[in-house]
């Protein structure tokens, strides 16, 4: 379980606080999304979780322990695939294991296993430039998985993809989530994406924020896109959009 306890944070270069006294939690194996207008601090939450930034006040706990005492509790997947162009697909996804000193034979086995599961085994030896946008994101996801962490932090992973690919990737991601039993914390500014994917949604309404409203999605898995047309779900989408719009000043 991930817990933020009264976390206050401000970038040293900024005059405005990013978040103040923020507390929230994410249960194990949950699929939770964070939505908010761009610039409201969604990515900053991830930077705090993966230790790239330190909170000014408050604490971040994973399974009750401060994250400073832990290693490999979370794995981050950024919006851009950030695959290394000089590494083949296989070498790219082995990178986290390489850094952890996993023996090569084991790297190989786990790599094949995951590539098979994400449907890219045939592309093992290819280079990133030979892949489509959707495939690159799948490789990046495989790399994230193989860092061995139980909590995946996905920061707008599909926002650069075209609509049809995005829809396909969303279904694919749910499938992966059910297979791997990981916790997924998913950032998006796309309300429909959040509703389709997650069990719960945290909404950031303004900056600085001291709370995120938590909204539960009344759908079970497996889901289909037609669920989005259900009146209660359509209504939920409208309500979420309404909440976001209040925070945006033009």
């Amino acid at each position: 379980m991930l817990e933020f306890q009264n976390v206050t944070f401000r970038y040293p270069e900024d005059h405005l606080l990013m978040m103040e006294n923020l507390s929230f939690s994410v249960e194990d194996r949950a699929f939770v999304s964070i939505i908010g207008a761009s610039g409201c601090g969604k990515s900053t939450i991830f930077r705090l979780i993966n230790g790239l930034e330190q909170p000014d006040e408050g604490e971040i706990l994973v399974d009750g322990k401060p994250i400073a005492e832990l290693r490999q509790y979370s794995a981050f997947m950024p919006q851009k695939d950030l695959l290394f162009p000089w590494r083949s697909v296989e070498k790219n996804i082995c990178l986290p294991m390489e850094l952890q000193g996993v023996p090569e034979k084991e790297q190989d086995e786990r790599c094949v296993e995951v590539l098979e599961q994400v449907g890219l085994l045939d592309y093992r030896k290819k280079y990133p430039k030979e892949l489509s946008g959707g495939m690159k994101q799948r490789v990046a996801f495989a790399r994230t998985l193989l860092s061995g962490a139980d909590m995946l932090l996905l920061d707008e992973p599909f926002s650069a993809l075209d609509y049809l690919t995005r829809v396909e990737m969303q279904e694919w991601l749910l499938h992966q989530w059910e297979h791997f039993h990981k916790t997924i914390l998913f950032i998006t500014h796309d309300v429909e994406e959040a509703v389709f994917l997650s069990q719960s949604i945290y909404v950031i309404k303004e900056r600085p924020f001291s709370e995120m409203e938590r909204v539960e999605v009344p759908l079970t898995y497996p889901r289909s896109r037609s669920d989005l047309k259900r009146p209660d779900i359509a209504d939920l989408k409208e309500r979420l959009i309404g909440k976001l719009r209040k925070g945006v000043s033009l």
Partner: protein
Amino acid sequence: MRKNLPSALLIAFLLLLWQGAAMGINAAYILPSPVQILVRLWELREPLFLVHLPATMGVTAFGLFISIALGLLLAVSMDWNPKLEKALYPVIVASQTIPTTAIAPLFILWFGYGIWSKVLVTILMTFFPIAITVFDGLKGTKREMEELLLTYGASKKDIFIKLKLPTALPHFFSAVKMSVPLSVIGAAIAEWLGAQKGLGYFSKRMMTQLDGAGVFAPVVLLSVVAMAAVGVISMIERKLIKWRKEL
């Protein structure tokens, strides 16, 4: 091959023009024709290929080797230590404005007619571009990629080996390709200023004998060797850097 056709035609045309002009002026001690130069190159093949070319190549290779070693060392240390960068980078950039050819005679004055004065001139001409280009390459890594590695628990050394080196490799090759002609120029100028052998020295000696084609022959030889060297390096580069198209 086909895409090189226009430039090949242009070069052929220019050579023809040169041949025509030279034949028109008819004063080989000022403007020898391409054919005369080739003939002279053949006549002088023994001293050129057996004595002077090896001498110049020795200086070039030696100077280039030291330059690459020093340039890499400097680039890597500046990248590793921001204080060194702050101190050295502006000095290096400013020093590039020093006209090396103008201070080359000083080296002859200090280090004599032997190989060291030439090697020093060569180093001076190539060291800075190598250091700066490679350093810029090391600094040019994407911050996001560096941060991604940090989230995987990478150390500073990991980041250097897994991210900075591969990113800087194309820059390294550009630097070397740029430095080959420069080092040849450096060696030839130094030899021209004072030496007992080498293509620069040979060219100058032919000048005193008013042998126009003899002045040109070693220059042509130098150019061809430099182009060949750059060609070989490009081939190695293409073998090593297959991903470049994406950058």
